[in-house]
């Protein structure tokens, strides 16, 4: 149930005073305007009235080599946790007409630190077989 509110109300959180004004559009997520924002962002910030989850997909570059029986060896700047499932995106072939890419899920089976030309890198052993690739493509097509 929604209740009408006349004027903004003040909320105090620790030592930060927030001017809280919430609006519920015809449908969807309510947002609350925050006054007294820090100067790190140039635009006004809006808190979401209801907690909202999101996902951040990151794309770190690696160098990869196929080992044997569905195993891959990757050299990465970032470590990976054993058991973590990641998605490997490969360029199989590239020319003037474009590039052929392949994308499939891989599971981390080992990760060891490695020094390459004085820099810390991580040698990550991955497993991703052809069946996993087919299942992944079917899921992507289904959305």
């Amino acid at each position, binding site marked *: 149930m*929604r*209740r*009408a*509110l*006349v*004027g*903004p*109300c003040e909320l105090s959180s620790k030592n930060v005073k927030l001017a809280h*004004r*919430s*609006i519920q*559009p015809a*449908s*969807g*997520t*309510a*947002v609350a*305007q*925050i006054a007294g924002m820090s100067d*790190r*962002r140039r*635009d*006004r*910030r*809006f*808190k*979401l009235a*209801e*907690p*909202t*989850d*999101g*996902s*951040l*997909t*990151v*794309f*770190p*570059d*690696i*160098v*990869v*080599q*196929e080992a044997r029986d569905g195993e891959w060896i*990757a*050299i*990465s700047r*970032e470590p*990976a946790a054993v058991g*973590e499932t*990641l*998605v*490997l*995106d*490969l*360029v*199989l072939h590239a020319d003037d007409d474009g590039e052929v890419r392949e*994308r499939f899920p*891989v599971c981390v089976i080992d990760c060891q630190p490695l020094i390459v030309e004085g820099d810390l890198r991580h040698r*990550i052993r991955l497993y991703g077989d052809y069946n996993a690739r087919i299942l992944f493509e079917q899921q992507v097509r289904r959305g």
Partner: protein
Amino acid sequence: MTLESGSPAVLMREHLMRIVDVSRSGCLIESRHRVEVGTVGRLRLRLADQECSDDVEVVRCDAVGLAQALYHIGVRFLWTTPRRAGTIREAVSRHVENVSTSPTVWLM
């Protein structure tokens, strides 16, 4: 399929996060995982019953949890696409206009 040794590739990883606040230029998100400043990625979230996403760059990552690992991650939107429907920038702009112009304020 055989690749020559040392082929460049991308190892995509998905971090689940909670959205703390949004603005026209970026978001503050909360995560149990640290993300390096400078990391570029794609942020997806649900705003007003609409799934939206944008390419972002991590501009800060501060530890905020004492008992457990918890990080506040500031990201800025990268203008890799126009501000069209389906982008977080467009959704936020629409909400900002509603907040600015609406004569009635509702409290959930």
